């Protein structure tokens, strides 16, 4: 015998008259065996009957119905496509590839694309060919350039150092001259002071000598008398 849940599904079939004879007899057997299912059937029948009382809603008149314009340009284009395009997949694929190739060639021509390949790389450029200076340089050239830059740097640095040194020497000489003049002035002043002191000492000694001579002369004359 069928289960309760299977019977419930058959109840729906019975309710909407979609049940076959075999299923109907199975359902009747289940309804006899499960009285509660008979009650469910009655309830569902009532509900269904009640639902049948809903009036149909009439749509408003302003519903837009599509009016496809298939006779116009779109139809003409579709017909043209049918005539021009091949029907088989292989032919369509081939045509597609050819179209892509032609498109690529046209783009290449219009955009002046240049493809360049070397041992290590390849490049694509748009427009006129790049100037030679923009081409890649090899390692030797890079080393030469580096050496040139290095030399130039050395020369510039040496020049700067020379200028700095000359400036420094000039300032040193100027400073030394100032010191020399200072000490020379001081020496001259000292010599003047020494000379003045010696002159004064000489004058003092001469005066003392005169006094001494005078005193000795007086003493001599005194002793002679």
């Amino acid at each position: 015998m069928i289960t309760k849940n299977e019977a419930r599904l058959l109840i729906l079939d019975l309710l909407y008259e979609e049940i076959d004879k075999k299923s109907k007899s199975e359902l009747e057997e289940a309804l006899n065996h499960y009285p509660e299912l008979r009650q469910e059937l009655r309830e569902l029948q009532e509900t269904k009957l009640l639902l049948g009382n809903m009036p149909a809603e009439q749509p408003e008149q302003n519903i837009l119905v599509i009016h496809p314009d298939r006779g116009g340009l779109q139809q003409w284009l579709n017909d043209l496509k049918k005539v021009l395009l091949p029907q088989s997949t292989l032919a369509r694929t081939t045509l597609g590839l050819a179209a892509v190739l032609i498109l690529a060639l046209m783009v290449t021509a219009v955009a002046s694309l240049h493809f360049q390949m070397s041992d290590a790389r390849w490049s694509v450029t748009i427009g006129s060919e790049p100037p030679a200076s923009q081409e890649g340089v090899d390692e030797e050239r890079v080393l030469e350039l580096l050496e040139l830059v290095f030399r130039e740097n050395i020369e510039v640095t040496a020049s700067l150092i020379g200028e700095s040194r000359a400036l420094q020497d000039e300032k040193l000489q100027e400073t030394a001259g100032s010191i020399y003049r200072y000490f020379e002035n001081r020496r001259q002043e000292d010599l003047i002071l020494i000379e003045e002191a010696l002159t004064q000492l000489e004058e003092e000694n001469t005066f003392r000598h005169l006094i001494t001579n005078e005193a000795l002369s007086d003493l001599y004359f005194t002793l002679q008398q």
Partner: protein
Amino acid sequence: MDDAQLIRQFRNGDPESFNRLANRWKDRIHRFAYRYFADRDEAAEITQKTLINAYQKIDLLRDEGRFSPWIYRIATNLCIDETRKNGRKKTTPIDSLADSEEAAEHGTPATRLEQRELGELLQKALLLIPEEQRAVIILKEYEGLKFREIADALDQPLNTVKSRMYYGLQALRKVFQHWNIEMEALYDNEK
């Protein structure tokens, strides 16, 4: 001329065939969408979108004889998308319960409901059940699709569809009981 013949004619370059197909289906789609949302504007919008989608994707329909579940699938998906996109239900369960209880208790007695009032209550009851169950009930009860066609339209297993139908009907019954709508209402109307 049936739907399949119209589709074939349309595919062969007869633009008027789709117009005839659209005119044939617009009322049904609108009725489905209205029962789903209980909103005329929403239903009109869904109808338009469904027909536009059908027009744009009709070349993807392999079997012209299955146009019915196919177009209902478009409509159902649009309804579900619209509900999820807006993140809302047209009527919240609490509000609907309150309004409907008021109508049932303070208006005319439930046992003597006018046909129109009963219809409105049924429409509100539909809004209270889950979207998936609602779609199945509408397609089955009002659009008359077979369970197999509904399964095709919703892209779900047959038993899932029946299960949704079963639980949807049970849920509606509970709502009716909550609103005190009794079967006498139906019997009165039938008199």
